[in-house]
């Protein structure tokens, strides 16, 4: 994947020779230094960006544009439309996907209560905290019932505590549904806690550096974080990432000096 930029000198090679197979029902975390192309990869899988070379296929068919029937997308920031109430936002998501039916309300309320937000159905997004909004955002992603869920750092804007609670909830939620999930994150702990497999990416241009399995069944309890297995995987990830982060920082310095 290459971004053209304004002139040839600004051309950016974001992803290079990335090959990744994700099994049905698998929870995969993409982990890597900032700017390594994690979100770009997610956008390609979701059909929001078209790759300059190579291909992305979901269920055997190439992805060229958004496919809401198969793929739901949860963004970093809350994308609840501020001019509609929470419930109207759910209705709209179903309408956009073309699956609005007579019992849309039940369906929306079900998803809301799954994240414990049913009492806020008639609130407007601005009346809710960042954590609540992101919780509902997640519920909306689940509500449309697509098989694949792409999450682009959905907890990045949240504080540490809210993050932990939401991560735990997500683990419980997903254990019941068997969805295929690709989750982009910066957080090592989050990756280990949530994923079945963690894909570590290199500094730009992003390549797959390592792929690490987390053999722990869902739902996972917070106690899992205290186990040696958890700590070992975390340490391993840190070892893998450290060099890449150093490289990124060095590259940023070079770029800064070149500008100055």
């Amino acid at each position, binding site marked *: 994947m290459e971004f053209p930029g304004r002139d040839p000198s600004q051309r950016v090679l974001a992803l290079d020779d990335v090959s990744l197979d994700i099994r049905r029902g698998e929870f995969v975390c993409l982990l890597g230094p900032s700017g390594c192309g994690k979100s770009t990869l997610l956008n390609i899988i979701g059909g929001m960006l078209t790759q300059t070379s190579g291909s992305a296929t979901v269920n055997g068919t190439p992805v060229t544009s958004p496919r*809401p029937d198969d793929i739901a997308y949860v963004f970093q920031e809350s994308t609840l439309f501020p001019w509609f109430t929470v419930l109207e936002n759910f209705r*709209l998501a179903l309408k*956009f996907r*073309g699956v609005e039916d007579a019992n849309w309300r039940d369906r929306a309320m079900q998803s809301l209560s799954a994240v414990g937000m049913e009492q806020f159905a008639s609130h407007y997004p601005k009346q809710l905290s960042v954590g609540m909004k992101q919780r509902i955002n997640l519920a909306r992603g689940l509500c449309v019932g697509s098989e694949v869920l792409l999450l682009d750092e959905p907890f990045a804007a949240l504080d540490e505590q809210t993050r932990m609670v939401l991560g735990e909830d997500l683990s419980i939620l997903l254990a019941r549904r068997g969805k295929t999930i690709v989750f982009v994150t910066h957080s090592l702990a989050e990756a280990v806690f949530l994923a079945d497999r963690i894909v570590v990416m290199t500094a730009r241009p992003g390549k797959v550096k390592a792929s690490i399995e987390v053999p722990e069944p869902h739902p996972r309890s917070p106690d899992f974080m205290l186990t040696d297995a958890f700590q070992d995987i975390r340490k391993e990830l840190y070892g893998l990432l450290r060099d890449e982060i150093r490289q990124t920082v060095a590259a940023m310095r070079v770029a800064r000096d070149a500008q100055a």
Partner: protein
Amino acid sequence: MIANDNLIIRTIQVGLFVALFGAWYFATRSGAAPLKLFLPAPELVWREMGVLLRSGQLWSALYVTITSIIKAYIIAVVVGIAVGFVVARSRTLVHMFEPVLSGMFAVPLTMFFPLFVLFFGIGPDSKVAYGATYAFFPIALNTIAAFSNVDDLYLRASRAMGASSWQQFRYVYMPAALPVTLTGMRIGFFICIASVLGGETLAATAGVGRATALAAELMETARLYAWIAFVVCMSVMLNLLALAVETRSERE
């Protein structure tokens, strides 16, 4: 505490008006002859207002002025929003037309008013054209700003959710652009009123502005003040109307 503050604020507001009218009243009591000519006593103005009201002059003048304002405003809104929307569709068009439109809006169009009279005659049509032209600019400019600044995040999200382009327009663009467009419409509304009335005072055969200017030309100052008082009343009413419409559409 807050109720108390409100009371104080209201008292001061009313007090200002009372002071103004009081000053007017006492000035006419004690003033010299030329002052009396330019500033007739309040009761004389009041009497003139009664005369204008009973004779039907007020209603026929108001009819001309208000229909001109409505016509001009409808034209400005329809054309302004249409042009603004079309321009906002493409970044190139925005770069091309936005500076042109805002540059033209910065020119005092009053200087072009004689041209409007030449093209559209001395009747109400020239005032309609003038008011519509003047009000067109803020409406078009705000519509451009509103539609070209819709947060990309919401557009990407709706695309990912599978929204068709009509759905994207109806549920994302429109509600996102509404507040700024409404602001443009409100600015346009007041500019429209001011232009039509201003045009009438410059060159017209009928209307409130014309009647006001005529009273001034004939040195009938009591009548002049009576017309001004009616214009003030009309503006306040139209302002309240605009406010009511705005709060209603904001609630929706």
